[in-house]
């Protein structure tokens, strides 16, 4: 029943590898501006925003740089900056 392993898949991060490399722009977080509204957390399509001890953490390994967190942030606490 080797076939079973081909038919069945288990949860894992990074199915498409470290998708951080897809990025053109990078979200930069400004803790000072943040009002901890959780919008970035709720709307990040990559699910790579965490809020730990009242600080937003972006997992740049996977963040694709879509810019949604920046757009939805009511406090302009996330800025998109061109990657080099």
């Amino acid at each position, binding site marked *: 029943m080797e076939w079973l392993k081909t038919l069945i898949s288990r949860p894992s991060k990074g199915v*498409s*590898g470290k998708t951080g*490399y*897809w990025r*053109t*722009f990078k979200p930069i977080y400004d803790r000072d501006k943040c009002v901890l509204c959780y919008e970035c957390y709720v709307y990040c399509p990559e699910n790579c925003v965490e809020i730990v001890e009242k600080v937003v953490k972006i997992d740049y390994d996977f963040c694709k740089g879509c810019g949604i967190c920046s757009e939805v942030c009511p406090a302009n606490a996330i800025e998109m900056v*061109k990657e080099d």
Partner: protein
Amino acid sequence: MLKEGIILCLGGQGGVTAGRILALACVKDGLYAQAIPHFGAERRGALVKNYFRLSDKPIRRHSPAKRGDFVVVFAEKILNLIDVKEILKEDGLVILNSKRGLNGLKCYYVNASEIALRLNLVSAGWPIVNTAMVGAIARVLNLSLDSVLSAVEDTFGGRLEDINKKAVEIAYGEVKSWSG
């Protein structure tokens, strides 16, 4: 004379179109050509491989080339994702979008991103480098500039035509061999 190439780009960079323009340019030069996009299931952003062949005789094989006589790299960061040497034939050469070339390899380079930005060939923040890269590849493969320009003409309409032709022309002129 059969030459096989592999074009590496990121989804959304227009590698498929580049291949087709190049192939069309070959036809105009009286050659035979084949552009084989590799379709994985990936969405835009991910690495995409395109295969390319040109020959003076009709091309019969359709399987992807395991190694290329040349490998084209649309973005420097692709070099972190794949070992170019693994898909390059012994004496193969690399054509790279960069300010510089690669050491230890026969390498040509052109700053296609910069050319694109210069021409304001940008979409969603990305410089559209494919036509510049076409220019560079064409030069390296010794295709005639006229043919490439005419192929670009056939591919684009309106405003896009001119700007892309310009990108081709610039890159055709600027591509350099690296000796580092």
